[in-house]
């Protein structure tokens, strides 16, 4: 599935980078990462997950020996193209708003009879969810973000997400807004997107799943949000919890119309 032989080289470089990062000065690391980005512009290692995800979607698995090809991601059974850019949305079968990751868990249950264990990042069935997310996201590349706001629950989740975004707490008094509500700011050398504005919100929203150079992992949005809250010094935000779905809704609605980038490559 590797399109270019260069990928083996860059994967090796990624391993080298991740072990070398803590010792390197940030500026050197940034330069190395920029160079790495150039090298991989033509072939994101996320493709490895995408290939596995496509396979998982089509393969008959679980107690029901069924594929996920009848899974409804919001645009009708089996429709994958465009699904990523129109989630989170309300699903009548579960009577709640779901993002791509939680929707996949429901589909694995409904269609395959798999009671997915997904509480821990990249463990158990969560590995499969990551791969599926990578492939499904790639099928929406270039499509405009269009997270729906027609169902009352979708509107409610957006409003809850907005409130969570500004919620200050923890020992450092941080909210999402502390770092993500102003233009042109940085932590150290890391630029911070202003997630209250359309374009940066849409770009950030569609930047995940992303392949992370610093640890060679593929991070879906749920994991990205968990790590944000960790750095915010909050307690642990649980997989698929209301706060994560609400924040995704807020970001997605704010980022309406921005063309999807995922899966991307990140520091």
């Amino acid at each position, binding site marked *: 599935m590797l399109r270019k032989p260069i990928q083996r080289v860059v994967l090796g470089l990624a391993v080298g980078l991740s072990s070398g990062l803590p010792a390197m000065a*940030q500026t050197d690391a940034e330069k190395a990462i920029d160079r790495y980005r150039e090298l991989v512009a033509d072939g994101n290692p996320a493709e490895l997950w995408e290939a596995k995800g496509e396979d998982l979607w089509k393969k008959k698995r679980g107690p029901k020996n069924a594929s996920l090809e009848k899974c409804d991601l919001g645009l009708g059974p089996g429709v994958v193209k465009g699904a990523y850019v129109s989630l989170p949305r309300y699903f009548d079968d579960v009577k709640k708003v779901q993002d791509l990751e939680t929707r996949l868990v429901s589909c694995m249950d409904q269609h395959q009879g798999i009671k997915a264990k997904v509480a821990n990042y990249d463990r158990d069935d969560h590995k499969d969810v990551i791969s599926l997310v990578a492939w499904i996201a790639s099928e929406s590349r270039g499509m405009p973000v269009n997270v729906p706001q027609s169902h009352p629950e979708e*509107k409610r989740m957006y409003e809850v997400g907005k409130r969570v975004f500004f919620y*200050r*707490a923890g*020992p450092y*008094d941080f909210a999402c807004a*502390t770092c993500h509500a102003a233009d042109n*700011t940085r932590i150290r050398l890391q630029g911070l997107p202003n997630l209250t504005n359309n374009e940066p919100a849409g770009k950030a929203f569609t930047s995940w799943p992303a392949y992370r150079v610093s640890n060679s992992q593929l991070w879906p949005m749920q994991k990205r949000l968990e790590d944000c809250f960790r750095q915010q010094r909050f307690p642990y935000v649980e997989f698929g919890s209301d*706060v994560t779905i*609400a924040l995704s809704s807020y970001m997605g609605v704010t980022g309406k119309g921005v063309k999807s980038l995922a899966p991307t490559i990140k520091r």
Partner: protein
Amino acid sequence: MRKSTLLMAGISFALAGCATMYSAVELDKMAKEAVEKSFAAKGIAKKERINQDAINLACTNAELTKTPLSGEATRKLEAAEYQAIKYPADGKFLGDWKAGEKLAQDGRGSTYSDSASVPNGGNCYNCHQISKEEISHGTLGPSLYNFGKLRGNSEAVVKYTWGKIYNAKAFNACTNMPRFGHQGILTENQMKDLMALLLDPASPVNK
């Protein structure tokens, strides 16, 4: 029958006109419930960290609604924070600027992946320019380069600087800066070292 149809039409028309079926107060409550339900204690990060004190609650609402706090509310909140500032018991405010620089560089601590036995870093360079040599600095806060050179080290400046590190919200209610002393993030000795980094004439900050 006809009456109720009209009534229904009226209700749905009214609903279509507002953002959601809920009032702002109800949504605030739902957001709070979502936060209560979504977080779990992990490592050193206890669940109670999600609780808001009066100033965090007030600033959250001000930012959410884009309505700055009134002058009266601001004064009250700042005064309460100011009164809780504790100054060094031995009357000595300045420690070692070299230790302060090391602390300013350190952005670790207090997350659920950190150990309780490792002291917190100062996180200063995450948001501020401080010494000129360190170019990897954030921009969320103002530059502190030449902090002491510009202000001198009179008793008033020293006391103010201590207060600002101890509890920046005593001077600016909704500042983004953490309350390093008030929240127990840094020890008294650590804050003295940061004081020296900012105010000691020998510190690279004042060169």
